[in-house]
């Protein structure tokens, strides 16, 4: 968990420095879910990840520097710099990702079908956000997994926001009930608590492994970085005065223009914007929802042993970043030429 946290913090730093281009979706805040689930997998088990797949790759044992290099687009990265962080693939680790929301479900079904044929007893795990739950392809994949009794474990990482939309405002009914309706047993767990995730995921994966068909776990969490680094509403939440100032003028002239909606409609939509901003601001003070800090407090090991462990992790991550930076300097094509 700590390696995931530190490597993603390092990646965030590289992104801020302009050494990584485009979007960057991190899993900071969901380490408890990733670790609590993936600890139950062994060789030959398959993982189907979404656009937030860095931690999953780390936990499956993919080389740290290969991941960092891939994020930087270097030729010696995990995918030769062709995929980037949203499109990480490691055939050796049976782990694939996708930047298309919901696509992890059907892929996992295919992986699981091949497991049934070729590697009985092996499973496939799909990771996705609760925002993906409304994608047809994901619901279709759950039905398929149920009727074909596929060994798929569906893991929904629920931070309550689909990009910057309240998931509850665009999701009908209850998710566990929905998946039960598709024939997949579902449970809910506090994803901040890695022990709780580990226990429930262990039982469910065991059942999946024994050929009892798919299962679904909804694990709640808070992601302080939101959907992606530079999330526009998080930027407003972090420095409201600077960020709101340029928006107020256009907003004011918009609502006072002729041919607009009614005042009631306008107040309603302004209220919703304020409400979302308020909730996102709250997520910035969510230290008690930090799975890494929470686990650290509960670990029953001597302080000096913990310090040693933490320093070991720091060294591992530093080494990976250093290697990537060295490669960026020597590589002809790597690095980000758009960086000033």
């Amino acid at each position, binding site marked *: 968990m700590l390696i995931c946290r530190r490597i993603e913090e390092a990646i965030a730093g590289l992104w*801020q*420095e*302009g050494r990584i*281009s*485009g*979007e960057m979706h991190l899993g900071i805040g969901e380490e408890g879910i990733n670790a609590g689930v993936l600890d139950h997998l062994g060789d030959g088990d398959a993982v189907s990840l979404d656009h937030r797949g860095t931690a999953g790759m780390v936990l499956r044992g993919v080389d740290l520097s290969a991941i960092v290099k891939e994020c930087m*687009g*270097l030729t010696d990265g995990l*995918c030769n*710099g*062709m*995929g*980037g962080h*949203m*499109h990480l693939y490691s055939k050796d680790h049976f782990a694939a990702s996708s*930047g*298309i*929301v*919901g696509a992890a479900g059907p892929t996992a079904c295919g992986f699981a079908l091949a497991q049934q044929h070729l590697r009985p007893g092996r499973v496939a795990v799909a990771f996705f956000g609760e*925002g*993906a739950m*409304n*994608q*047809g*392809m994901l619901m279709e994949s759950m039905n398929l997994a149920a009727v074909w009794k596929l060994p798929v474990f569906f893991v929904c990482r629920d931070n309550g926001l*689909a*990009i*910057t*939309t309240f998931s509850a405002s*665009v*999701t009908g009914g209850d998710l566990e009930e929905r998946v039960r309706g598709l024939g997949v047993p579902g449970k809910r767990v506090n994803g901040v608590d890695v022990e709780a995730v580990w226990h429930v995921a262990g039982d469910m994966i065991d059942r999946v492994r024994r050929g009892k068909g798919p299962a679904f776990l909804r694990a709640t969490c808070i992601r302080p970085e939101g959907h*992606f680094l*530079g*999330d*526009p*509403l998080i*930027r407003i939440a972090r420095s409201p005065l600077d960020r709101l100032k340029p928006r107020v003028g*256009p*907003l004011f002239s*918009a*609502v006072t223009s002729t*041919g*607009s*909606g*009614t005042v009631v*409609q*306008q107040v*309603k*939509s302004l209220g*919703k*914007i304020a409400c*979302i901003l308020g909730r996102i601001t709250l997520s910035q003070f969510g230290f008690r929802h930090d799975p890494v800090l929470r686990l650290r407090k509960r670990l029953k090991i001597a302080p000096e042993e913990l310090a040693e462990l933490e320093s070991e992790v720091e060294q591992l991550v530093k080494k990976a970043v250093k290697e990537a930076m060295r490669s960026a300097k020597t590589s002809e*094509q*790597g*690095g*980000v*030429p*758009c*960086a*000033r």
Partner: protein
Amino acid sequence: MRKMTYAQAIEDALAQAMAADERVVIFGEDVHTLRMNLYARFGEHRVRPTPISEAGFLGAAVGAAMAGLRPVAELIMIDFFAVAADALINHAAKIETFSGGRWKVPLVVRAGCGGGYGDGGQHQQALWGLLAHIPGLKVVVPSTPADAGGLLTAAIADEGPVVFLEHQLLAEDWLEYLGSGGRTTVSYDIPVAGREGEVPDLWEPIELGKAATRREGSDLTIAGVGVGIHRAVEAAELLSLEGISSSVLDLRSIAPLDRDAIVTDVGRTSRLLVVDEDYRDYGLAGELAATLLEAGLPACYARVTVEGTIPFDPARERASLPNVNRIATAARRLME
């Protein structure tokens, strides 16, 4: 005349259309954040955030358009059209014909497209050739703020489905959202004339399917759309120093395609260089070659396109996109 950015022009034209016609409604993912001004002005009733379910809400947009609304559905990126392909290919494009011309689908699908900001091959494709391949779909790719507003006004007024593609390098809202994310440590090769320019005080529709000449020349015709046009103009300036005179033709829409403009211009220059940010095979570039052949024009022809999946690595990404160097090299070869 006013001065506006590409993104402001689109929002302004959209606001004008919404104020004039209550049937114009917006829906798409995250529109309360992405279109905050319109959301505040017109309310959630008309600017409606959707779940992440492109197949569902694009299919609903087709139905809403059939039933009397004039929806402007947003896909964020045209790459995500693949998730909702059925709504466009099998429904929006077919209904007018299937109904014997009695039932129309006045729908606009807005989406970002195009590369140059390093987001990988699943988030910056062009795909306009794929869309224009389908009879019944119109596909528009504006390259300037004035065109963006005027073409959007025409698209909303059109009685059929129109895919309106906004290049992510030109639209500063997309670039900020997907590329820089508020960083000052990154920069992009953005064509100035495409990012900001003069626009009319009141939006008037620009007829779909009419090309615009961006530069006059006698030796060679360079044709394309979007950012490719700006790269072509830059290359043409470079070539003029070497004594090569190029005209640059901005097609502005892929379907309908202004075949007359192509045939007329190439009739003069006898050489056509297509600059196309879409994939090379079975697309716009080949269609323009077929247009010349069908017109019986014995022209020299070359194309600068994207030849494989766009690499994530920004250096290789930029080399894979039509850039000034590739265009100038191809033009010189055509002149040999």
